[in-house]
């Protein structure tokens, strides 16, 4: 038995609507590399219908197939109809997804809905159409990188593996003192810096 249905493989191998729009009316971005997947949807809207849609996805086969399917399902729909696209519908259209990949279909529908909300906000506020300035989300280390035990940021020592941490002077994240370089940003950690 294959990992994915034929339909998933088709959308993964030949994804529809990959790319970006020159002048999008709405942009929706969900996920981050830490949780595994990241999707960006761009839409143009004409007469309350989604005229064009493009996406970019960093993620597994299912994530790419979901993005492709969502883009196909959304094209030409009214905004109200598009808002009603659910993850269950996307998964069903794809001929099913493995259980542990169902969250990918949530992301696809979420990214589309965010793009629509973004369009509505801009329209209501009269903000000119332009590409959003991306805000990089800082992901703080909450777990010991060696044993996944939660690390309290105030006490930089992992209670399970007794690893002493130091705050990396470059990126501000936690790094084990035994390391020569910060595991997050590659900065050199010297005794003085610590």
């Amino acid at each position, binding site marked *: 038995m294959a990992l994915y249905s034929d339909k998933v493989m088709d959308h993964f191998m030949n994804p529809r609507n990959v790319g970006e729009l020159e002048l999008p009316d709405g942009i929706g971005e969900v996920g981050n590399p830490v949780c595994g997947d990241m999707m960006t949807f761009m839409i143009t809207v004409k007469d309350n219908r989604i005229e064009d849609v493009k996406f970019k996805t960093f993620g*597994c086969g299912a994530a790419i197939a979901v993005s492709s399917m969502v883009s196909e399902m959304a094209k030409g729909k009214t905004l109200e109809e598009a808002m009603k696209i659910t993850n269950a519908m996307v998964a069903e259209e794809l001929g099913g997804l493995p259980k542990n990949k169902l969250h990918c279909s949530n992301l696809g529908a979420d990214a589309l809905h965010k793009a629509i909300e973004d369009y509505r906000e801009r329209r209501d506020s009269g903000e000119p159409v332009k590409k959003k300035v991306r805000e990089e989300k800082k*992901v703080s280390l909450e777990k010991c990188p060696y044993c996944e035990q939660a690390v309290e940021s105030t006490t930089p020592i992992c209670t*399970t593996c007794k690893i002493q941490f130091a705050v990396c002077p470059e990126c501000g994240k936690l790094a084990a003192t035994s390391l020569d370089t910060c595991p997050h940003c590659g900065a050199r950690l010297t005794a003085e810096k610590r």
Partner: protein
Amino acid sequence: MNTNQPIYMDHIAASPVRTEVLEVMLPLLREGFGNPQSVHQRGQEAAEVLGGAREQVAALVGAAPSDVIFTATGSESNNLAIKGIARARRKKSNRVIVSAIEHHSILNPAKALTQEGFELVVLPVDGHGLVSVDVLKDALADGAAVVSIIHASTEIGTIEPIAELAAICREHHIPMHTDAWGSAGTIPVDMKELGVQAVTVAGQNFRGPPGASALVIGRGTPAKPIIAGGIQEKGIRAGQENIPAIAGMGKAAELAGREMEDLSARLMIIRDALISRLPAEIDDVIITGHPTMRLPNHASFCVKYIEGEGLLLFLDQSDIMAASGSACTSKSLKASHVLDAIGLDAATAQGSIVFTLGRENKIEDVDRISSVIKPVVSRLREMSPLYKRKEDGSLQ
């Protein structure tokens, strides 16, 4: 779809059983049904087969035949080592020391031991995945019931300085176990030279059948059984022996020991071609693990800005089979703890790809992998919002 022979480079996940091994096993599956504990002929024939396999496996790791405890899997051997030795030495110390890059079959039982009142110490590794001798020295100051450090990482290929680490353990009179799941049968694993008291050996890794592995444990090191029952395997591992699989493992160990040197010299050429070509031919590909102190059959990378599962699926369409430690590839959706331990950020770890070679692989395979992987990586990067940001310069 593809007229070329498939390229299978996922040998650490599973390998085909050798014909010579099958020839030993098949008659045993047909007629060799005896129970080695039985007094009669059938039983004694089985006992003889078991004894022969014990000698073959012992020879592979430089141990006495009586030190070999047969188990079903590498995971079982690891569980037996960590739980068995820790529980047997509990009066001496309640500390268990392992490295951050152990297999789950060491890490999870070690974590479970904390429920029994043991204290777990997880040693960090450097960017190449090496455990530092000084870090172990510090950790041993407070004693330990058992230390377990993997011999060679199956995820990043790095070979640990086991002999040096074991020397420190010996100074403190603390038994050391090494998980040689990925290395025994591929590179020399001599318990005397390494100076370790226990070694996990998995037959499948050197073309033995599934269902037979061993924990080789020196006479002076006590271990409590994790499967209690009869007196099989000195009472350390109860349960009727899987004679055909064990005999197959023995034969495979004999062949592996004999052919190891030639085979690893040949595979190293293929490995080094992969390691030198892929990062040179594709932008932003990093080698994971140690550049030279690594398994001769192991080449591992992270391809930045893309995710490993997509890469594997595309390669599979071209009949190239490899592995990845990315979160999306694992059923648990967690990135490999090994990639995390060597300090890779989550996005980079997502691009993990691991090639593990076997005797069927050829140097020409590298040409085909190179020609297939390049357009696949470009294609996935075209789709990736992270790559776009890198191009824009807006990626941090």
